[in-house]
């Protein structure tokens, strides 16, 4: 992120964007379209979350030119955005409200909706259309960006009054170099998974084929609001440290900045750092921090024995919520969701792994089994599955042990949500989780816990089946043996009685 930030000073934003579009998630036609939807949907969910309301959003994807150009519209019921910050929110790179805030959030990259605006401008030359209803005011406009100044440009502005009950943002843009796909990387799957991870939200998707998918909310309780926490020294990289140093105002000394901007950094710990990293002058101004210094400091951070950060900053989706949402959306025969306490990775970063497993029912109606749905802080991870610790760990589990004989063919869907203020992504694309030992182990344990539960269910079912076969097997002999027994005993009259008793015994024993 330091590169992105620093990049602004040297290149025009457009040029920067073109050079770095891959990093921002705009690589490949299918992925670009999903990224655009992701940015808008994320903003909508976060906005509703901050306003403590149930998000209701509707997404339209329309084909303008097949496999080339698509129109995307996202409408939400959030608080809307007032006109004075509308441009900043949607038309200024890295100006999102969440950048530099250490809150457990979905996107974390802050490229957000402004990135989409830019993509639209670069790929089609068209600004995006926005309608914002906020506190009784309705603003409609076209929104573009002046690349040279990195400033938003609002045109065709129409201001109206509206009722206070009308609120929300409605954004629409046309994006070229995109492609709509039905499969696992497409917008449809992305929204379905988003709905699964956000059972408090209602999500509607109108596909280019004219299908309408409705995922109604399945829980009333809103997710807990993520608390803003200061970063922990173990949770930052050199780039993060540089960002913080550049954004921090009013510090004459780096040491003071560390103590105030980070959690668990005391005067004593600063002293320890001075000894551990003598090359870096902790008395200099934070603005003079270089990449080299930042790297050395991060290495130093790892050597200090820190008090772990508070674990209450980690907010899982919740056992009950995931259960309801898996039932609601996948309609399986069995659902089990783990509920595990927070763990720590890299010696100090708290995280929670949630695993939900759904088996049978409607799951492999389309004939494909063994789906692993990855999430980081509720955001679905669709791409780079191969390199992701979640996928790798899920594949490494011996599902056979849990009565799932062929994972890839059976009607089983697994949800893994990794919740943490610092999700260890493998790259800036933020689509896969890196193989941190503690994280991998916890994912594995959670998967096995879920596996054991499925095993119990499946072996119970198998036993039932076996019992019923056994029952049938013995029952077919009852007629013959009853007649023979009665005759053998010289009690021909008791045949019926013997038969009834035997049938009763068998039914009771093999029920």
């Amino acid at each position, binding site marked *: 992120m330091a590169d992105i930030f620093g990049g602004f000073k040297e290149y025009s934003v457009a040029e920067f964007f073109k050079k770095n579009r891959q990093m921002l998630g705009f690589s490949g036609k299918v992925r670009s379209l999903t990224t655009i939807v992701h940015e808008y949907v994320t903003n909508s969910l976060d906005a509703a979350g901050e306003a403590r309301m149930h998000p209701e959003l509707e997404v339209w994807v329309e084909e303008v030119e097949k496999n080339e150009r698509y129109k995307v519209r996202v409408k939400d019921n959030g608080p809307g955005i007032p006109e004075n910050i509308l441009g900043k929110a949607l038309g200024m790179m890295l100006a999102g409200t969440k950048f530099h805030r250490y809150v457990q959030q979905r996107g974390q990259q802050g490229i957000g909706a402004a990135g989409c605006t830019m993509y639209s401008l670069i790929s089609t030359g068209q600004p995006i259309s926005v309608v914002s209803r906020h506190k009784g005011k309705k603003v409609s406009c076209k929104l573009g960006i002046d690349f040279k100044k990195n400033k938003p440009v609002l045109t065709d502005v129409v201001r109206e009054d509206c009722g206070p009950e009308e609120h929300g943002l409605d954004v629409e843009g046309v994006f070229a170099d995109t492609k709509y796909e039905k499969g696992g990387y497409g917008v449809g799957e992305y929204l379905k998974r988003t709905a699964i991870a956000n059972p408090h939200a209602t999500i509607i998707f109108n596909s280019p084929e004219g299908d309408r998918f409705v995922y109604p909310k399945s829980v009333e309780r809103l997710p807990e609001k993520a608390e803003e926490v200061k970063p922990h020294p173990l949770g930052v990289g050199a780039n993060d440290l540089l960002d913080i140093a550049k954004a921090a105002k009013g510090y004459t000394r780096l040491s003071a900045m560390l103590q105030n901007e980070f959690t668990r950094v005391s005067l004593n710990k600063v002293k320890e750092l001075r000894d551990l990293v003598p090359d870096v002058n902790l008395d200099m101004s934070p603005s003079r921090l270089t990449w080299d210094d930042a790297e050395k400091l991060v290495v130093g951070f790892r050597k200090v024995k820190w008090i772990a950060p508070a674990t209450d900053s980690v907010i899982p989706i919740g056992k009950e919520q995931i259960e309801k949402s898996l039932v609601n959306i996948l309609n399986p025969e069995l659902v089990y969701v783990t509920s595990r306490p927070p763990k720590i990775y890299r010696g100090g970063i708290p995280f929670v792994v949630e695993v939900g497993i759904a088996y049978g029912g409607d799951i492999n109606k389309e004939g494909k089994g063994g789906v692993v749905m990855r999430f980081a802080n509720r955001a679905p991870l669709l791409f780079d599955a191969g390199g992701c610790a979640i996928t790798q760990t899920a594949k490494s589990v011996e599902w056979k042990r849990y009565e799932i004989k062929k994972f890839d063919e059976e009607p089983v869907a697994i949800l893994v949500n990794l919740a943490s203020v610092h999700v260890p992504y493998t790259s800036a694309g933020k689509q896969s989780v890196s193989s941190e030992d503690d994280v991998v182990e916890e994912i594995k344990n959670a998967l096995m816990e879920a596996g054991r539960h499925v095993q119990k269910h499946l072996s119970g079912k198998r036993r039932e089946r076996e019992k019923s076969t*056994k029952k049938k*097997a*013995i029952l*077919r*002999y009852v*007629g*013959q*043996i009853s007649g*023979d*027994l*009665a*005759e*053998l*005993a*010289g*009690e021909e009259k*008791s045949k019926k*009685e*013997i038969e009834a*008793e*035997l049938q*009763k*015994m*068998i039914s009771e*024993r093999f029920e």
Partner: protein
Amino acid sequence: MGEKETIEKLEGLGRKMVGQVKEKKSPTFETPLRSRGNIEYDNAVGFLRLGDKREERRFLNVAQARTFMQTVAVANKTKKFLIEDLHTSIRGLYYQLKFSLGENLDESLFEEQTESNALIEDLEVAMGIKREDLHLTTDRKGVVAGNMIVKDNFAGEEITINCAKQGRSGWMIPSDVDNGMEFVDVKADYVLVVEKDALWQRLNEDKFWKKDNCILITPKGQASRGTRRLIRRLADKGIPVYVFTDCDAWGWYIYWTIKTGSMNLAYLGRDFSIPEARFLGVTMADIEKFGFLKKLTIKAKPIDIKRAEEMMSYPWISAHPEWVKELKKVVKEKRKIEQDALQGKKLTFVGEYIRKKINNKEWLP
């Protein structure tokens, strides 16, 4: 065992099981194990028999339900045979019970005869009754001649058979010598069991049984159940039993089966073994004793040697040093000799040989 008693035993089994059902318990059937591990040789009694290991079978056990049903079917069917006073072979029984369990069921009460054969043995051993008592016949094998009168109550008719007046063919030993058979007059100093029919015919032609006042029997190889029972019944009258076979492991084992019973039929125990039987020959020692025999030996095949070695491993045989000596000779010299070879010098030598052996008490235990 009388027929009434057998019927009573079978009904008792049925009543026990019906009682269990009425008490809401699975019917059970207890039987001694017939596996090798439960076969023991009792030196005190001198025959092979089953040990104390027993198994309990339950109808309400999926693995045993079918067999259980079949066992009851066999018991009931044989009870009917007894009541109707009809006999059949075990194959006849199998066909009586080979029917479908139901119109829509692709399963018969019995599919293979081997299924019913095993169950007959189960019933015999569990109930302490012989298959002959269940009116199940076995193939007849074995012929007898001698001063013996038998009354045979058969098919509603009583026939008197004089075994001294059967001419060249002798009286064929029936499969059941117990039910409906009465030995009214037996006059004999001993019983002579001759392995081969050819030698029996030789001795019959020589009027050997008349001259020596013995009962001459040939089992024609391994003794059938009926032949073993006949020898047993004669021995029960206090008549000594001598056995005369080929000089090889196979012939000797015919003797041992008569004497101690066999592993397969160990469950039959005393009723089918004659521990007091003695072995006359032919022995390896005879080859030395009777010079002409030396030239009449045959080379023993590897399988003969193997069998001899096996016999040495049986504790009831290896307990006798005389037998170990004989068997070791077979293994060492790799020769064997047929009892027919005794006719090599002159045909009537066979009789002389037997007389000499008995008079000089030249037998093996």
